[in-house]
């Protein structure tokens, strides 16, 4: 399927799902839950661009996600702040906030990458872990965005597109999902994606083969960080009360690693599959079991898959297909020999 066709199909699927669910579901709860699942589609796909495609693991999803969320807070408070200087600007629409969140996160991704990507992958991973702590420290100490007390975010009175505000957020997140999956799919088949795969498989050989490894890695970290920031930008309006403890919740870090690993890291399908599967299960489970137990199960699944099925569900399906094909060939040869 050519990439242009893929974009159209993805957009059509997204549109269809949005329209159908808007008409079918009258209970708002569906949209609350679906928002989270879609958010994880974006986070997992973003993570996988750097992790599965390029081979550099990022443990600090929470940092990039939170940067997006808190940049929205800043933009939300900007009109009131500027008014005290007699500068009048209108309230900033959410899509603009999403773009800004993406840009800021992207820059942070670029910066982290620039400082650590000339070294081995493990140092980048450690730096992302430490980055999460640092960003959290900065936010906690910044009163303008609420510091450790948190901040209340009032949703705008009217939601564009009719319907409730949650339905609007759900639609926006669907758009982001389609965009991120489209980007992932485009990368897979492009020269860039081939370069990423070469870096993942053997960075030294890639560099010797003419691949500008540092530049490509920086592209991956920037893109990945930007998408994560965009996923986080609507969060303040979703939760209406934003505070660091839950925003930097380890759930984002572990889910954005577990979903691609369990779904499968080699293509765009894996993160989407992992997000839908794990995301839905967790949404259903939080009603019955505590969220800590919930996360424990995700963590254990991650360890299990990494040890037993490192190529994820997609990998298992592909392996089964290959075995069937090989068995089919063997049977055909037997018949021919007989």
């Amino acid at each position: 399927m050519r990439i242009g066709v893929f974009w159209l199909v993805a957009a059509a699927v997204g549109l269809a799902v949005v329209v159908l669910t808007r008409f079918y579901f009258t209970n708002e709860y569906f949209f609350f839950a679906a928002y989270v699942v879609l958010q994880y589609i974006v986070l997992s796909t973003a993570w996988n661009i750097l992790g599965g495609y390029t081979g550099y693991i990022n443990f600090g999803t929470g940092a990039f996600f939170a940067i997006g969320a808190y940049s929205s807070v800043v933009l939300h408070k900007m009109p009131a702040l500027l008014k005290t200087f007699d500068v009048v600007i209108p309230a900033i629409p959410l899509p603009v906030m999403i773009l800004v969140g993406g840009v800021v996160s992207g820059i942070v991704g670029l910066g982290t990458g620039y400082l650590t990507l000339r070294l081995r992958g493990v140092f980048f991973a450690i730096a992302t872990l430490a980055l999460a702590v640092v960003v959290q420290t900065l936010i906690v100490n910044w009163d303008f965005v609420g510091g450790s007390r948190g901040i209340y975010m009032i949703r705008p009175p009217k939601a564009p597109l009719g319907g409730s505000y949650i339905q609007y957020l759900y639609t926006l997140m669907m758009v982001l999902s389609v965009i991120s999956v489209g980007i992932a799919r485009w990368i897979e088949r492009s020269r860039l994606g081939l370069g990423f795969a070469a870096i993942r498989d053997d960075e030294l050989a890639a560099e010797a083969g003419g691949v500008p490894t540092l530049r490509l890695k920086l592209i991956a970290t920037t893109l990945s960080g930007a998408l994560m920031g965009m996923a986080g930008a609507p969060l303040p309006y979703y939760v209406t009360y934003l505070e660091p403890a839950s925003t930097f919740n380890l759930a984002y870090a572990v889910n954005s690693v577990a979903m691609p690993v369990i779904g499968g890291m080699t293509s765009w399908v894996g993160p989407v599959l992992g997000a839908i599967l794990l995301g839905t299960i967790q949404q259903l489970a939080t009603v019955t079991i505590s969220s800590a137990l919930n996360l424990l199960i995700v963590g254990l699944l991650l360890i299990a898959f990494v040890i037993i099925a490192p190529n994820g569900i997609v990998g298992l399906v592909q392996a089964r297909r290959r075995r069937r094909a090989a068995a089919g060939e063997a049977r055909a040869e037997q018949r021919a020999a007989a």
Partner: protein
Amino acid sequence: MAVSLDLLINAIVAGVLLGGFYAAVSVGITISFGMLDIANIAQPAFILLGSYAAYMFNSSLGLDPILVGIVMLPVFYVIGMAVYRLYYYSFELRGEQAIQGLAFFFGLLFVAEVSLVLIFGVDYRFVEAPYTEGSLHLGTLNLPLRMLIPFVFSLIMIALLQLYLTRSFIGRAILAVSQDGLALQLMAASPIRIKQIAFGISVATCSLAGTFLIIIQPIEPSIGRDYIGRIFAICVLGGMTSFPGMVVAAMLIGIVESITATFYGPSWAPAVAFGFLLVTLAVRPAGLAGR
């Protein structure tokens, strides 16, 4: 801002004491990452396990926490060996990309933290011992016992480890493996067994390090994350394999953190170690670039 000299000196001294403790926390990583090239990012989880073990036996049986730490050494050693076996058979043997090994340790770190939350809750826990209160006064110097005692025991532990590594047969085999695994194979010693012992030792240190931690400050499950940046920064700054270098690096970070906390507030301390890490990585001492 008028800087009180007394305040500064006490901050520096506190930093030195803190640094000694940080060295104890980092010695395990120096062995597993610096010498064995295993990025065990779950190390803070093992340290917290040590802390909670000390808490359990101290609060229920009133045992001295350092005693608990010493008694638990063999338990942690066995855990370390088991973890290495799992790691070896799942990843090293298969020649998997490093990403799976990292994901494994991350999973361990995460599962440990969440399990601790489930078992102990998010409340702060602490231990009680004669030395958790009170301080030693030397002139204008104020040395809190809860920092001085761990400091002393940390240095003893590191010195003993250094002796073991340089004098005993297995210790020297560990040093040899860290430099050239192939040479060791040619000597007909099994590097896997040696690595297993070394990794076991690196986790065993967490038993004591965790005890020191809970003596110094109350703990709750999420503080493990603050330590990741610190211990890797110390290991890297210290030259990866050198214990003396590690101790110096730990003191340095301890002092800077202490001064930051004293003059700018304690909530900035975790960021200091990360700053150190970034600076270290950016300056790139030889041996870091694509080993």
